[in-house]
């Protein structure tokens, strides 16, 4: 009896709590969009380097030049630029007039020169590929950059250069011996504040947790509704929240606590669930190349015929099949949407065991296949990379070759690729253009001796002088048409060495409420597609959907 009474009290308390929850869960329709990303680590343009920092950069700041969907750059903060002299070490940029910082002050060449000097001096973030750059103010709206080495692609690298407001940064410098007279160069302050010209202003930043922003009405590109529907209006407030397990994300997406998800890590069943939901949409923003490098310095992938056997043995259709409805498709060294794309062997990308056996027979390991083992590593936790490995394991077993599949944690996996000796035979990567949305990223950075190295070149193949010469020529060629011709010429040359398996290209699918529209243009690079100036909200539709 007493037990029953106790249980009744507990049930009543629980019911009261539920009633309270019901009461507090109601909300009102507002011009606010909640975006799930990863936690922004820092918002200092000189130290930001992570994927998620870059997304924040494109909202809080503006780059000097803006990436285009075709893989080039167009004027943005700079209206024009040209190489001074013929050696490509001296570049002059003319700045847009009337661009305002969030503080209301106009941006001038002094701010841009200061930002570049700071960027280079801090030797952090994305400044590495720039080398040493000296900035000089020519007049109020003109700035010169002198490089320590020639670069035809210098303007493209400035898609990750975000000028800061000089006076504001100088006013918030902390005493430190790190950068001489400049103390900490405002690093600590900028990690949680903004001094930018971007479409959104920071209103709150709890690093690693949330970033609140408000629309900057004086944004220099304006907020025109041209090209948008009649009810689609600019978003007034954007709240970036931290990442979570995708089951939780599905819950808050369906519960309309989140409006837009920009990581695109959904599983196949989740994507089908989103597709089936009438108030949710999926938008394909840009594609990433799933790339499986083969270490040319490790047994048995040091043999070109062995590597080609792998390319023919892989069953592309089995891996891509279920995903085709969501846009996954064949790819090559660059993605098919890029100008100058050349399909690579095997064509069409289908399994051909006859050819695989032929190639295997030509390899130096043909007579001792039982003694060799291919080690395939992927980043632990990424199921789609594991699927590729397991498929390969099954396919190679048909040829009598053992494939060991493992997914070490990221730190260990990254460290393995510090040298050819420690890199496994095959390493699977999802390469998203985080740096330059150009052919240079997929070609020079990934195959030249002076490329990005490390995981980006874990094939460790730099032995073809023709490829090296052509890659170097791309960076010295100022004419974009001629440069594209070299890129086209390079792809079959690189593919001939069978340095990588390209299972498919994986589109980044953003899931969102159907009252969210965008992005206006899909740019194959982290950042611009997540620039919320590129998105709109339909408040009429939101009101109808939420029933309020």
């Amino acid at each position, binding site marked *: 009896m007493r037990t029953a009474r106790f249980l009744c009290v507990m049930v009543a308390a629980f019911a009261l709590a*539920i009633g309270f*929850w019901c009461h507090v869960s109601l909300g009102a329709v507002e011009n606010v969009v*909640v975006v799930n990303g990863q936690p922004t680590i820092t918002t200092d343009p000189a130290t930001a*380097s992570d994927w998620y920092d870059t997304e924040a950069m494109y909202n809080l700041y503006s780059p000097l030049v803006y990436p285009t969907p075709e893989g080039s750059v167009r004027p943005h903060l700079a209206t024009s630029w040209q190489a001074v002299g013929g050696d490509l070490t001296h570049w002059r940029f003319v700045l847009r007039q009337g661009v305002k910082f969030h503080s209301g002050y106009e941006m001038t060449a002094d701010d841009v020169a200061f930002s570049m000097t700071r960027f280079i001096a801090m030797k952090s973030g994305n400044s*590495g590929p720039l080398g040493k750059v000296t900035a000089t103010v020519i007049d109020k709206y003109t700035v010169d950059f002198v490089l320590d080495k020639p670069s035809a692609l210098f303007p493209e690298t400035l898609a990750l250069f975000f000028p800061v407001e000089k006076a504001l940064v100088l006013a918030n410098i902390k005493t430190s011996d790190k950068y001489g007279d400049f103390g900490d160069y405002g690093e600590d302050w900028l990690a949680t504040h903004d001094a930018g010209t971007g479409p959104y202003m920071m209103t709150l930043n709890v690093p690693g*947790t949330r970033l609140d922003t408000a629309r900057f009405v004086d944004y220099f590109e304006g907020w025109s509704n041209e090209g948008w529907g009649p009810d689609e209006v600019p978003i007034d407030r954007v709240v970036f929240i*931290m990442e979570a397990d995708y089951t*939780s994300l599905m819950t808050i997406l369906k519960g309309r606590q989140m409006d837009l998800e920009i990581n695109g890590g959904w599983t196949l069943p989740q994507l089908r669930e989103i597709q089936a939901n009438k108030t949710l949409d999926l938008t394909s923003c840009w594609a990433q190349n799933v790339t499986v490098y083969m270490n040319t310095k490790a047994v048995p992938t040091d043999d070109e015929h062995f590597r080609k056997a792998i390319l023919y043995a892989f069953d592309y259709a089995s891996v891509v099949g279920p995903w085709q409805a969501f846009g996954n498709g064949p790819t090559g060294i660059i993605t098919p949407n890029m100008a100058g794309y050349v399909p690579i062997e095997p064509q069409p990308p289908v399994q051909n065991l006859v050819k695989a056996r032929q190639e295997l027979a030509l390899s130096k390991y043909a007579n001792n296949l039982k003694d060799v083992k291919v080690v395939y590593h992927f980043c632990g936790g990424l199921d789609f990379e594991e699927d590729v490995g397991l498929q390969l394991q099954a396919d190679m077993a048909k040829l009598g070759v053992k494939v060991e599949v493992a997914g070490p944690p990221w730190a*260990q996996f*990254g460290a393995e690729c510090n040298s050819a000796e420690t890199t496994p035979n095959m390493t699977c990567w999802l390469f998203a253009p985080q740096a330059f949305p150009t052919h240079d990223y997929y070609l020079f950075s990934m195959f030249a001796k002076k490329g990005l190295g490390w995981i980006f070149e874990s094939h460790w193949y730099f032995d073809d002088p023709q490829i090296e010469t052509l890659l170097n020529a791309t960076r010295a060629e100022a004419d974009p048409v001629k440069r594209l011709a070299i890129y086209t010429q390079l792809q079959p040359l690189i593919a001939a060495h069978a340095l990588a398996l390209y299972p498919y290209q994986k589109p980044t699918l953003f899931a969102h409420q159907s009252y969210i529209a965008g992005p206006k243009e899909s740019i194959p690079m982290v950042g611009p597609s997540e620039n919320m100036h590129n998105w709109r909200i339909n408040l009429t539709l939101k009101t109808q959907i939420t029933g309020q």
Partner: protein
Amino acid sequence: MLSPSRVLEGAVKDTMLKYIGLRLVQSVFVLFGLSILIFFIARVVPGDPARAMMGYLATQDQLQAVRVEMHLDKSFPVQYYYWLRGLLHGDLGRSAYTKRPVVTDLAQYIPATLELILFATLISVVLGQAMGILAGYFRNSWFDGVSRLVSYLGIATPSFVIAILLMFFFSQVLHLAPSVGRIPIMMTAPPTVTGFMVLDSLLAGQFSTALVALTHLVLPAFSLAVIHIAQEGRITRSSIVENLGKDYITMHRVHGIRTSRIVFKYLLRPSIIPTVTVMGLDFAFLMSNAFLVELVFMWPGFARYALTTMLNKDLNAMVAVVLVIGLTFAVVNLLVDILITFLDPTVRIQRRGG
């Protein structure tokens, strides 16, 4: 002239103070040993801390510069010397992942997890004890059977599975519970004073925010508490059953003392001693093991931070995280020992050397 009871009381106080002092000194040595251990382990596990700090596009020159700045080019003992010197000045170094001082990170993340596990502990104490007492007192009844089944299920089911199930039913299907975060996404958080959302809301006079924050605690805290409710419930039940059969309880019954008085005055106190010991360990355990629940509920806490730093080979943060967990174990165990001394007179006598 002091009475014998006053003399005894004074002696007990002295003994306790000496005992606490000794335990504190021991804890310092334990933490020192722990710091050496984790400092070296962190450096030998695979991963490149310079790369973690500088990102994907860093050049070899930049990486080398960072290695020099972080003293990674020096021998392990020299690196440890620099770290220890920093620690004595309240500087735990800079996190490679967040690029902020580790102390700043800890100050941000620890309160969120502490609030969560305090609430989880409260739930597990109330429900675990209630279940254990009832199951023990009404042993072999239907309630005992149900509580046994619930306990086995609770112990066997991982917290994150419970978290996902609770979220699915209460948030997604029934739309009854808040699903993620410490407060609703659109709600303005109170100014940070303690870092405890409920407390800070009360301090700021935002009573509705405090209530909402409390409701946001329920699902994640309950997810974490389930296993401990089950565990503590079973331990309490065993103690109750054991003590119920003792002569002094029979004597109280023979004297006609009310059942409720027997239970709460004479039975409960000795029966909860084993549970209190386990509770202390559970509390410290949750500090580092709440990460999956924090991930599911988007809880910006310490356990999640700890996992992120480990996966990114964030050296300074890794060492700090392990030290915080070690410190938590040390402090909680000390508090548990003190509590047990007050609950159990035999322990007091033993510590006096009686």
